[in-house]
């Protein structure tokens, strides 16, 4: 200790102390700092986030901000979760073509791998619902009747009895659910895209969601049966009335014209 004590007035002592302090701080930091930062560079997850960030910068940052913080043109994406990205990009709604009352679905230009990368990046911005697994949304052996009742209770107000869609205020609308992938229906319920309210598992349990998907699969898919014949859009009395007027009465008037044109010949006398 004498040596050390003797040299404490050495001109380089301060430099040594500084170095020691820096080393200690650095050492402590390495010991306590979040470990994944150092490991992340090598995992698939962080690669996905990196790739997702690049895709995000090209496709999304114009409206949602470079860091997903949101701008006047688009909401913040912190906490929306991977399910929201999978739904919005997977159905082609995002990236939006133009601002408007509502962003319509269109052809999706991203591959599922790219969507997963985007989802990973957005999920890294804040915790949110994850993309559901197949077991979660697979409608096999769910209760159709129960799903119908749940659908009429929670969904039909906007989406119509069988999910044919309906109007909301000022140009907004509830889209048709015809032939929508069960995964997207599940995700939409989970996070509530655009004008739709969200139905987290506390509101509609996983089983409830499955039942609803099973009901839609039964009544509103390509192989749903319509026992009465042509469905006429499934829109109710408006399309029925139109059909009745044009084809029903119109056809009968055509028949009447035909009958009236075939008249008995007057006897020439």
């Amino acid at each position, binding site marked *: 200790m004498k040596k050390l004590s003797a040299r404490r007035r050495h001109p380089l002592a301060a430099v040594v102390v500084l170095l020691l302090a820096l080393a200690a701080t650095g050492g402590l930091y390495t010991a306590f700092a979040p470990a994944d930062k150092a490991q992340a560079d090598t995992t698939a997850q962080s690669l996905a986030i990196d790739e997702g960030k690049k895709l995000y910068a090209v496709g999304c940052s114009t409206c949602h901000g470079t860091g997903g913080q949101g701008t006047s043109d688009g909401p913040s994406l912190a906490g929306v979760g991977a399910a929201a990205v999978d739904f919005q990009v997977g159905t082609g709604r995002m990236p939006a073509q133009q601002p408007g*009352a509502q962003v319509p679905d269109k052809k999706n230009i991203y591959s599922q791998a790219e969507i997963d990368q985007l989802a990973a990046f957005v999920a890294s911005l804040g915790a949110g619902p994850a993309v559901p697994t197949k077991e979660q949304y697979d409608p096999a052996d769910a209760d*159709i*009747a*129960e799903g*119908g*009742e749940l659908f*009429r*209770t929670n969904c*039909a*107000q*906007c*989406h*119509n*009895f069988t999910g*044919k*869609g*309906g*109007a909301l*205020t*000022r*140009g907004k*609308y*509830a889209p048709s659910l015809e032939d929508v992938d069960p995964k997207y229906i599940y995700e939409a319920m989970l996070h509530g895209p655009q004008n739709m309210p969200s139905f987290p598992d506390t509101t509609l349990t996983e089983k409830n969601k499955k039942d609803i998907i099973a*009901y839609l699969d*039964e*009544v509103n898919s390509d192989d749903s049966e*319509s*026992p*009465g*014949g*042509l*469905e*006429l859009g*499934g*829109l*109710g*009395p*408006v*399309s*029925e*009335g139109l*059909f*009745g*007027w044009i*084809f*029903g*009465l119109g*056809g*009968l*008037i055509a*028949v*009447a*014209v035909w*009958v*009236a*044109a075939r*008249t*008995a010949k*007057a*006897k020439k006398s």
Partner: protein
Amino acid sequence: MSTTTTPNPSGADAPGRSRGKAPAGERVADWADGRLGIYSLAKANMRKIFPDHWSFMLGEICLYSFLIIILTGVYLTLFFHPSMNEIEYHGSYVPLQGQLMSEAFASTLDISFDVRGGLLIRQIHHWAAVIFLAGMFVHMMRVFFTGAFRKPREVNWLFGFLLLVLGMFTGFTGYSLPDDLLSGTGVRFTQGAILSMPIVGTYISMFLFGGEFPGGDFVARFYSIHILLLPGIMLGLVVAHLILVFYHKHTQFAGPGKTNNNVVGMPLLPVYMAKAGGFFFLVFGFITMIAAIASINPIWVLGPYRPDLVSTGAQPDWYMGFAEGLVRAMPGWEINFWGHTLALGVLIPLVIFGVFLAIIALYPFVESWITGDKREHHILDRPRNAPTRTAFGVAWVTAYMIMLIGGGNDIVATHFHLSINAVTWFVRIGFFVGPVIAFIVTKRICLGLQRRDRDKVLHGRESGIIKRLPHGEFVEVHEPLSQEAMYTLTAHEQYKPAEIGPTVDENGVERKVKGPQKLRAKLSKAYYGEENQIPKPTAEEYKEITSGHGHH
């Protein structure tokens, strides 16, 4: 066989027959005549003449679809349970298995899926109802635009109008019977309209539903209204309507040989028996075909009614769409005073609904007051020759149609990618502006067509042939019309506008002219004044032009 009605002395020329027994048909007829006195009835009516025109068959479409509704309705009553007792469904429609529902709904599901032919009959019944109402509407328009409602047919016009209104309510009560989510919403809507009536509303609602909505009674009550009360009245009115058609004889369009005192056409027997009888089967077949092709009111996807549920796209059948549109377009105004609420947002549409229908019902009386014409009319007007009436009718139909758009504003919005608010504003403005534009445009079109008729009579039909004269002039060759065509084009009568007369009498004392008289003179001028009809060509004009002095 065309105009004359000389009875055919059948059987008189059968000398070879033995004096023993008369043929079986004759004996049956004789038996019946001896007990029912049908001979004179048949003699008077078998050769009754009806004119031939397709538009005269619109009423037949209504009559036959009404009969089809009754026939199919009887079948449906055999299987329908008008009860609101709650049961659990265990029928063959899987997506509703195990659900709680009323017996009415469950029995309608059974009719649709488990009763033989049930779904087809149900769909025939419902499609026939939609077509029946549409047919009555078009039939009424035909009668309106051709002036067939004039004396002596005003009462029959009112009968027809009552049939339309009763048809609307019969349809509505029938639509409500299955107790599905869609019709239940409609019943709730109706209850709201009833409640909006000041003072009596709550009492009527409590009386109708046997307490608070929905209660356990309304299906059974609507059932007796739907299958007994209203159809009974309608059947009586239909018979009265037809008796009056027989009594007044059918109207006909103007033409050579057709006068106000005759009917030119074919006899009831055999021509119209065959044609009308055949047409019944055509109508039945056609409606059955429609019912076999297209689904209507698929209650199984709508689900059972529960007052806490509602779906978007909840509309009534088209004939109530006008009322639906009025309520949808009306701003939700209300007045609160002394603890009471006056729901103007529903009450005003309710009043407009009644007034709007009453206008068309009372129109014949208004027109006869304006014209002061109390004579009988059996010759129909062409719509162009009554421009103001035609324009008025088109304006009425325009307002009606705009409100139908209003009733389906959500469907219009989603299918044309519009904002529902924009559609509603279009309807609000269109309800007032549309009829005015329609009135003006229709009147101009009518007057234009009158001018064309006048030109055709005076100058003949444009043949499209251009002739070059030797000195180089080009002329278009007009072909003169036939005598018959000219008669048809000039057969209509043109009224002179009613005058109030001098406002001072012969002594120079001012005569008092009452308000209604002034109004009548004004209206009469609007109908028949100089600007409002084109004078039809006179014989003198025609002679002057065809004598060669006039030039084309």
